[in-house]
């Protein structure tokens, strides 16, 4: 598709620019490397909010209510017996999906 408002030599130029960007160094591979180039105090990583110091409250992974218990098999938090039954009977894939939401990426064996 060609547009009338685009530079006709852009397609060739684009490849050139891209190769130049890659050949310069590997500095643009990730954000951390991009930031290290200009050594100013105000950069993308420095303005990130720091981790919280308060202890995280536990909520039931399935229903969302406050969780008092943790299942040692599936590592899920749960609030009552109904949810416990559900967790134990559900397939491993769903248990892993619940864990992934919370940010745990471990895999359950057996």
């Amino acid at each position, binding site marked *: *598709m060609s*547009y*009338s*408002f*685009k*530079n*006709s030599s*852009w397609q060739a*130029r*684009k490849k050139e*620019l*891209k190769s130049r*960007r890659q050949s310069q160094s590997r500095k*643009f591979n990730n*954000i951390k490397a*991009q*930031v290290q*180039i*200009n050594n*100013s*105090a*105000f*950069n*993308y990583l*420095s*303005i*990130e*909010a*720091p*981790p*919280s110091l*308060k202890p*995280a*409250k536990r*909520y039931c992974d*399935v*229903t*969302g*209510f*406050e969780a008092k218990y943790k299942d040692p098999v599936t590592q899920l938090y749960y609030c009552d017996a*109904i*949810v416990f039954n*559900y967790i134990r*009977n*559900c*397939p*491993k*894939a*769903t248990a892993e*999906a*619940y864990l992934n*939401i*919370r*940010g*745990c990426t471990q*895999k*359950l*064996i*057996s």
Partner: protein
Amino acid sequence: MNYMRDNYASAKNDVPILIDYGASTIKAGYATSQGPDVVIRSYINKFKDSNTQSNQIAQWDTDVFKNYRSPFEKNLIQHSGALEQLNDFVFERLQAGKHGRVNHPMILTECFATTDLARMIVLEQMFECYQVPSVMLGVDALFSVFQDDLEAYLKQTQLVVHLGDQTVHVVPIVNGQVIYSNIKRLNLGGLNSLKYFYQTIQLRHPHLKFTYPQIDYWHKSYTAVAIDYQLQLRSFLGPQQYFGYRDKISEQNRFYDDDLSFLDPIYIDIPIVQKIVSAEDLKRKDENRQRMRVRLQESIQQSRQNKKSQLEQQLVALQQELETDQNNDELKKKIITLQVKLGQAPKEALDELKYNLLNVPDDKLTPSQLNQKRYQKVMYEQALIKKQKNQEFKQLQKDANKFKLEEPEKYLQMLYEKRDRIVLSIQERKKLQQEMNSRNSRFNQKRIQTLAFLGADDKVEDDFGKDDKDWEIYRSVTKEMDSADEKSKYKLQEIEQELKDLDPDFEIKILKSIANDHQLGMNLSQVQLSVDRVRCQEIYFQPHLIGVEQQGLVDMIKLSSKGLDKLLLQNIVLTGGGAKTQGISQRLSKDLISEYDCPIAIKVAPDPVFGTWLGMKNFSNKYQSMLSQFSITLDDYNEIGTQKWEIFKQHPFSNIVD
């Protein structure tokens, strides 16, 4: 916001084009028009068709969470290809530019502390692809605060909370000067909230399929920020829990309101889509089935006749052989079995041959024959037991009919028990099958172990197969399930059909047996939104809910206003699309009041979504003379390039610190 072609044609070359690159939507338009002319989602979906293979703007459906491309990653422009396609779309809609260039000055937005790569991509594209005369770069959060007057803007003192689609920024501005060292960013936003909402609902209802518009509508209209999250959770649990908890809190003399209004759970019915089958189709299917049946019967009859003729030929041949030597017992045996098969002799004739040694006394037998006799005895007894069992089963079937008529309640109970047993077995088998699919399961690991053992070369003697038990290993290796699964399903159908006929409230009973408060595993065609209504928006205050290890919004505001003027807390402004969520300002003020002594005032910007674009428009219309001073020209770009720092200009909306 209207798409008017006449308006564009009249736009002259020196009218600036304003583009607000947002992570969720891109807003673009001429500075002369009232609102943004083009508003598009900033996602691209690879659209594959048999005829044309081209990229199109994303079609929004369930696949959008998996299969989309966006130029943005954590609010940073990283993918130049996607951005170019979006820019093409925007300029085509705006009908801007001819003869290989777009001859309008540009005002573009970027996020706080963008990396060099993001700026490079944008500038290279603008200057080399579209050959734009000049580009001004500004921060979106700062443009959204700009009203009319630059002098007023340079005197204000306020704390801007920009709630974007992928990130949240907290920006303190004191006397018109942005305190760059105190800016804080949280790596989540509206998209994360929507994803969280979708995932939690979809996981609880695996039998339903949700579309993107459905989820987006629910997320927009039903979700809100809870003003007191703990109390709200209690109120979802029920009145008893809630009042007990509230009394406890009031004893501790904490902040709480009697007038707090709570959200109620919402139940959404989802229509079951049934396939409508016309009468003609049914007829055609019936005819087809009958035709198939006739064909099958014919083929079976033919095969039977073929077999019969074969057997008869064999029999004739055997009888001819028998005439030559009369004393061959084996031949006699064969002939009798063939006769039994053909129906020429009764079945008992075989028994006499089989158990011929039973009635002979032991004295007349050789030791090998004695062994045979013992074997025949055992076989005879087993055959008798089998016969008895068959008779008993036939009687039972007769009795069951009697049982059904005489004691219907007991019969029903028996049927229910049978059903439960079958359901359990089916569930267990399903679990096993799912385990087989995943690589890490214990079943698969064992399987691989046995395979490795079988394939090992270091065995001295290969005695595999000497014992019949060796072959049983293969049974544990096969992945295919036996046909028992289908059989039990068929049985279940039969029993349920019978139960439906006998018991009028069978379905209600089944539902009651698995019913629970949370509606887990009930497979209803209904969605219950209770905690989901507040949980997905709570991530701003408790980011650990979705695994982001950062502070919440309240702590961020505390941190960024530390050591600065207390006036900041009286001028907190919420902008960005996230500011539209219900209850977010009340929640913030409630949480901040308990932290500070000073008065706190929070307001939502008049137009949170289009505020950035309108701010750009006001600036460009009122201060046209400053525009050239603040922007990077094509000559600058050709002379200096994007590598050096000098090319970027400093201005009230800029991103650059000395």
